[in-house]
């Protein structure tokens, strides 16, 4: 397959999709390539916090300002994936006492909305909080479901005539002299190779950006930094809780969807696709969790996972021309001025919260390179439908309830209302419609898109049901369906392993009995070929 475009974006995370949306809105012919599914990279594994900016007020005031502005803007542009949890900064006994005043003053300077509240009020709002907190501040943190957000963005890109091509891995960059003119790669579903020519290539490959740059013969030193998170089974808090101290490990708990997530850590790893989750990291997060919620260890930990940050090391600092464009948190690399290779820009680092701004910066620069000044429209264009509302945790329960009452008291429930994933309330109808749209047999895609298998039983009950529906709907050969099931279970169990104690262990034992002893999954005929699909990052 060969095609050509004006702007070609590599990487389907928040940065890449934001850039594609921006470019397409400006009327550029736009194509985005992603090797996995949407949210396959760090964007699908992040902490879920739409920053108020509070965390950065002292260390990185510019980031703080940007977060505050983008947070307010995104609530309006894509409300359906954002929950207005609000946030609290609390001073725990272990935290430096003088930080709170500095923090408060810096919030004011950075235009980060903040209100000091009393520890008693904070405790009333969040009863599980450490009663020994001495200060508490309310900020405008929110939680954001990145799977939903990226889906909305992909839809918006397509609506603006841009193209989002999933499971297309870039393997080579085509250069003509000192100019990049396109890329080649492989369609991972069909095995076909593709070539795409472009006027300019935007490298938004996150922790993989160094590899893309290397394909173009440019050296960009990106060290993947692993950040660990642990999802607790329920919403221990309904407000984002930040420790009021200089940012460090395990200092934030985010209620996102039905769970609450504590994070993160930051450890350099050699390979963004392969890293281990160490016991000490898990222990560290649990211990920090206790600082915020004394009963933390009594609650059920669901799974642990990590995302990788691109830690960019500026090896050619002196050559960077326009450093004004960059905040310390993200780096826009112009390879023409930096490496003498035209036709490609790289965006490294940054935050989910500021993806729109980063995209604007990137596409503004691309415009300049292309000599086509076009105004950015993303600030005033809704990503969501106009009637969309901010997300609430009970949304799924409510929609299920409205279905149920239509069924009245007939015994025969229409099968479409059957609940397949009981923990996350995913119905058969949702799965079937997803399959019709995506045609993907991969259970993990259902997980990312519908949250299937993400609840307390970690797919113990839904995986075998869902694979049956996939098998039936897509008319697959049995070994293929079997392989999908096994691959999915392995991935779920992998995430459970680091937190396998107490309640989770009991649940896992039960699931193992279902799959191994009752269903005999170990003896199923499987199809190895299926491995051509990229698997999750292994941990």
């Amino acid at each position: 397959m060969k095609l050509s475009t004006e702007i070609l974006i590599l990487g389907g995370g928040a940065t890449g999709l934001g850039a594609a949306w921006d470019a397409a809105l400006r009327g550029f012919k736009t194509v985005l390539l992603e090797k996995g599914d949407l949210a396959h990279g760090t964007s699908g594994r992040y902490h879920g916090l739409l920053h108020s900016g509070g965390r950065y007020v002292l260390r990185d005031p510019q980031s703080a300002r940007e977060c505050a502005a983008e947070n307010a803007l995104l609530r309006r542009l894509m409300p359906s994936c954002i929950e207005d949890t609000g946030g609290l900064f609390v001073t725990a006994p272990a935290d430096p006492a003088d930080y709170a005043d500095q923090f408060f003053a810096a919030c004011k300077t950075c235009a980060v909305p903040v209100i000091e509240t009393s520890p008693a009020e904070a405790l009333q709002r969040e009863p599980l909080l450490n009663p020994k907190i001495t200060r508490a501040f309310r900020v405008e943190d929110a939680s954001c479901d990145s799977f939903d957000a990226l889906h909305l963005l992909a839809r918006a890109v397509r609506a603006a005539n841009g193209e989002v091509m999933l499971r297309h891995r870039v393997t080579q960059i085509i250069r003509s002299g000192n100019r990049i003119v396109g890329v080649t790669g492989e369609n991972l579903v069909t095995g076909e190779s593709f070539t795409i020519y472009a006027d300019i290539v935007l490298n938004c490959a996150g922790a993989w950006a160094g590899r893309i740059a290397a394909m173009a013969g440019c050296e960009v030193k990106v060290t993947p930094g692993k950040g660990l998170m642990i999802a607790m089974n329920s919403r221990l808090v309904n407000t984002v809780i930040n420790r009021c101290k200089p940012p460090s490990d395990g200092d934030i708990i985010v209620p996102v969807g039905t769970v609450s997530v504590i994070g993160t850590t930051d450890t350099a790893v050699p390979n963004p696709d392969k890293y281990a989750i160490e016991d000490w990291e898990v222990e560290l997060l649990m211990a920090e969790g206790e600082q915020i919620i004394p009963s933390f260890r009594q609650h059920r930990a669901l799974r642990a996972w990590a995302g990788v940050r691109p830690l960019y090391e500026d090896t050619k600092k002196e050559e960077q021309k326009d450093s004004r464009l960059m905040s310390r948190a993200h780096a826009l690399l112009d390879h023409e001025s930096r490496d003498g290779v035209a036709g490609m820009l790289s965006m490294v680092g940054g935050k989910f919260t500021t993806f729109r701004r980063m995209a604007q910066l990137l596409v503004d620069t691309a415009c300049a390179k292309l000599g086509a000044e076009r105004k950015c429209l993303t600030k005033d264009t809704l990503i969501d439908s106009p009637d969309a509302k901010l997300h609430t945790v009970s949304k799924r329960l409510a929609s299920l309830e409205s279905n149920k009452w239509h069924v009245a008291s007939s015994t025969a429930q229409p099968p479409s209302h059957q609940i397949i994933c009981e923990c996350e309330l995913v119905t058969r109808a949702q799965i079937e419609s997803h399959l019709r749209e995506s045609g993907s047999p991969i259970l993990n895609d259902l997980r990312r898109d519908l949250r299937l298998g993400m609840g307390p039983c970690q797919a113990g009950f839904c995986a075998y049901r869902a694979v049956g529906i996939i098998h039936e709907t897509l008319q697959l050969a049995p070994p293929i369906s079997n392989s999908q099931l096994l691959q999915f279970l392995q991935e779920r169990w992998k995430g459970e392993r680091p937190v396998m104690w107490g309640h989770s262990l009991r649940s896992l034992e039960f699931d193992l009995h279902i799959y191994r002893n009752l269903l005999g999954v170990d003896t199923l005929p499987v199809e190895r070929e299926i491995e051509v699909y990229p698997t999750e990052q292994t941990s």
Partner: protein
Amino acid sequence: MPAHSLPSLSTQITSDLCIKCNICASACPVAAAADRFPGPKAVGPQAQRFRHPRLPSPDKSLDYCSGCGVCSLVCPHGVQIAEMNAIARAEIFKRDGLPLRNWALGRSELLGKVGSLFWPLSNVPFKIKPLRVVIEKVMGIDARARFPDFSRGTFRAWFKRSAAAKRTMGARKVAYFHGCASNYYEPRIAQAAIEVFERNQIKVALPEQNCCGLPMQSNGDFESARVYARNNIRKLARWVREGYDIVGASTSCTLAIKHEYHAVLGIDDPALELVATNTYDIFEYLAMLDDEGLLNTRFVKRAETVVYHAPCQQRTHGFGRPAADFMRRFGFAVIESKADCCGVAGTYGLKKEKYDIAVAVGQPLFQQIADENPNRVVCDSETCRWWIEAHTGKKAVHPIEVMAEAYRGRRQ
């Protein structure tokens, strides 16, 4: 006496313990009888994860839970499902407003006071069919549901008059919690209890007390229930400090004090701890005396066949079924009910949209009673007895009445 203790985990957090095994779902009597009830796992630990303490829970189907507690009893992992449901339901009513019916059905003490004031006239309205039809239309209380008769005088008035109640002067002291039913409808049960204490040289006092609050609680009116609960805690704590044990024959009242004040109403104070850990269902108490060799066992043996139904609240206490064992010692042939719940679950079965479900839940029990055809049915809970009487035509008595007879050597 060995004290029981209050649980340390908050009720909602026990949803963490669920492994989705479905044991509760297969045991729930309402889920088996009502298609529109998604069952304990679904409305309990599953829905709990989608509830926000500052937002209304959207799942109204939850209201079909009868609160019988079978689910909490069978859950092998300690999930307090029924308790969780009660809390979530109260939240819904807090937002939507309490239906008049639920307000009224929760007010058993008020009803009792008015009823005994206007006795015997007060017994008439509940029997006037057209009026009941109007009540059904306006309030949603099913016209078919039978209400008990108010008694001529209250138990408290009898106790004050009765010399018997005062002459016992043993070392062991009981402050008796009679509940609304014994006071206003069936003083004979509390009288039987006093008689049994007397036969055991137990000194009995009659503390000031209110309705336990359970009818309000299960009708979703937590605020009023808490007022009653706090009153009771205050009034009873005095007696406990003076060395009295709190004992009651209404198994749901004692359960409320022992368990629900804390687990459902969320009351957390040292006075409750004191009262709750010193409160006993009467058969729990008698069985303990028996274990310690302190029970008067001079029973006059007599042969009778009874069906014994241990009501759901009695089971939730978790002390076995000593009443059945005692009756066997009296010479009885005791056929134990196979049903977990008679269906009525307090005031659940009186509600229009739930009446048929409650009857369906009780059907296996009614059938067993019809098949065994005993003279009497024995059951510890008042609402269950009334419901069983209405649906089987059999007389239903409290086991403490049977015990008093066994001391006396004759049926009343």
